[in-house]
């Protein structure tokens, strides 16, 4: 393998790693060219699961171009975001990566009805060229292969447990990673032969990771929910943003990123 490619691989890993520790990072989808004809256009803040980062930044820019309303994002782990919202963080919309984290906010009275807007399934990630010739979930039981899966305490690990149970396979992992991005990073660095990550993680990563489909993935479908928050100062704009995410335009952005329809 050539030098520059190897260097690029580690550059990706290095770039991805600091993100792992940031519990939430704020990103601004504002562009100065956004239509500002509507004098009353309010700005809103959207709290969204980290896995939605690229898609929602795109959707936010499209939404702003149409409505003139500025959308600011706070991306992070859904559980962290739910905690922040319940502690009074100024948010207008919450997009969660699991029903449980949305329920934490709804139960506390922070949000009304929520809607399914996307889903994500697991996929086997292998290093470029699939050097260990991984063909399916059964390879995860092979002790001679280096395997990474998420720790059972985090959502992708819980999903992995479900598919292994459905396939009646006892995996032999070498490491139980602390989140899905760390798991993917191990594949990108070519330190493991295979890992279980989300479809969107493989789609969103550069050429150094390939996906291997497996039939049992349908056993663990991760539902994404979105809701406007009761504390919102701009309920109309918030609802318009939710509607835009559910519109064909919003859905096509999500599909391109690897999300499935709800």
């Amino acid at each position, binding site marked *: 393998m050539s030098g520059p490619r190897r260097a690029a691989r580690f550059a990706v890993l290095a770039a991805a*790693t600091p993100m*792992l*520790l940031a519990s939430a990072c704020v990103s601004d989808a504002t562009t100065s060219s956004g239509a500002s004809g509507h004098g009353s256009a309010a700005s809103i803040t959207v709290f969204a699961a980290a896995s939605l980062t690229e898609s929602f930044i795109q959707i936010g820019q499209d939404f702003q171009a149409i409505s003139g309303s500025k959308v600011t994002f706070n991306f992070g782990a859904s559980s962290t975001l739910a905690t922040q919202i319940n502690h009074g963080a100024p948010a207008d919309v919450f997009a969660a990566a699991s029903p449980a984290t949305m329920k934490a906010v709804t139960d506390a009275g922070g949000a009304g009805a929520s809607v399914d807007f996307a889903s994500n399934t697991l996929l086997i990630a292998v290093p470029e060229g699939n050097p260990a010739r991984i063909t399916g979930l059964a390879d995860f039981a092979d002790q001679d292969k*280096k395997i990474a899966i998420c720790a059972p*305490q*985090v959502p992708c690990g819980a999903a992995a447990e479900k598919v292994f149970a459905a396939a009646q396979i006892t995996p032999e992992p*070498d490491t*139980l990673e602390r989140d899905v991005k760390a798991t993917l990073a191990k594949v990108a660095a*070519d330190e493991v032969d295979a890992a279980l990550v989300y479809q969107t993680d493989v789609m969103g990563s550069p050429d150094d990771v390939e996906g291997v489909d497996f039939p049992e993935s349908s056993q663990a479908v991760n539902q994404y929910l979105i809701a406007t928050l009761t504390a919102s100062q701009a309920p109309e704009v918030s609802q318009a943003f939710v509607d835009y995410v559910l519109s064909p335009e919003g859905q096509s952005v999500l599909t391109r990123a690897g999300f499935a329809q709800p």
Partner: protein
Amino acid sequence: MPSPEIAPLATQGPSNQPPWQSRVPLLLGVPAVLALLFLLLPLVGLVVRAPWAEARAVLGSPQALLALRLSLITATVSMIIAMVLGIPLAWLLARPGLRGASLLRALITVPLVLPPVVGGVALFTVLGRSGLLGRPLYALTGFSFPFTPYAVVLAQVFVALPYLVLSVEGALRASDRRFEDAAATLGARPITVFRRVTLPLVGPGIAAGAILAWARALGEFGATVTFAGNFPGTTQTMPLAVYLALETDPDAALLLSVLLLAVSVGVLVLLRDRWVTRW
């Protein structure tokens, strides 16, 4: 450790307390107490908040004991490696007239500044399965460091070594060189001077550096989780267990942290009594 066999050149000050030490000026006393409170109050908070009713279940769990055992073993091995490699490096750095010493010193400080997670990535580039040295090693033997306890030790040594080197080097530079010169003029070979004179002279500095290195290794998280991964019994040290417990059971995480604190304070107190004061 043998004590120096040369009589001291200068006598220490009188052993009874001089009168000017008896009163602590406010300008020093107040910040000192503030510093102490700032360091200790969060720990007190941790101990108070910990759900002691669950202590038996959490602390007695096989996973917690495995993690504690791995942490203590790897931190101690890392400290020994740091001493074996670090004391000679400190000696070299402290040698008068070493060219480029300040540049070397700056480079040694880099791992202190580097976010440990990035340190883990850096270790991959050299010792990972497709790293600079790791690739030929893997091709020859089929062995690779990541996901083994060796990787835990490597990550810990990487972050802990600078603490030891800098403490020992500071002690060496502050020590009285004339003892070594005297030994050399009396015909001792350099290695003998180092063993019989230099080492005992900087004993407290070495002890302090070793304790710093051990403590840093014990608390190490970022480089370990990146380079060694996380698997119970193999690479899951206490800080990793605490981190994962935070995801689902923050109470258990508090208890595990308190356990780690208690064990490390216990070991340090024992060491101070049995070892450090002997110098």
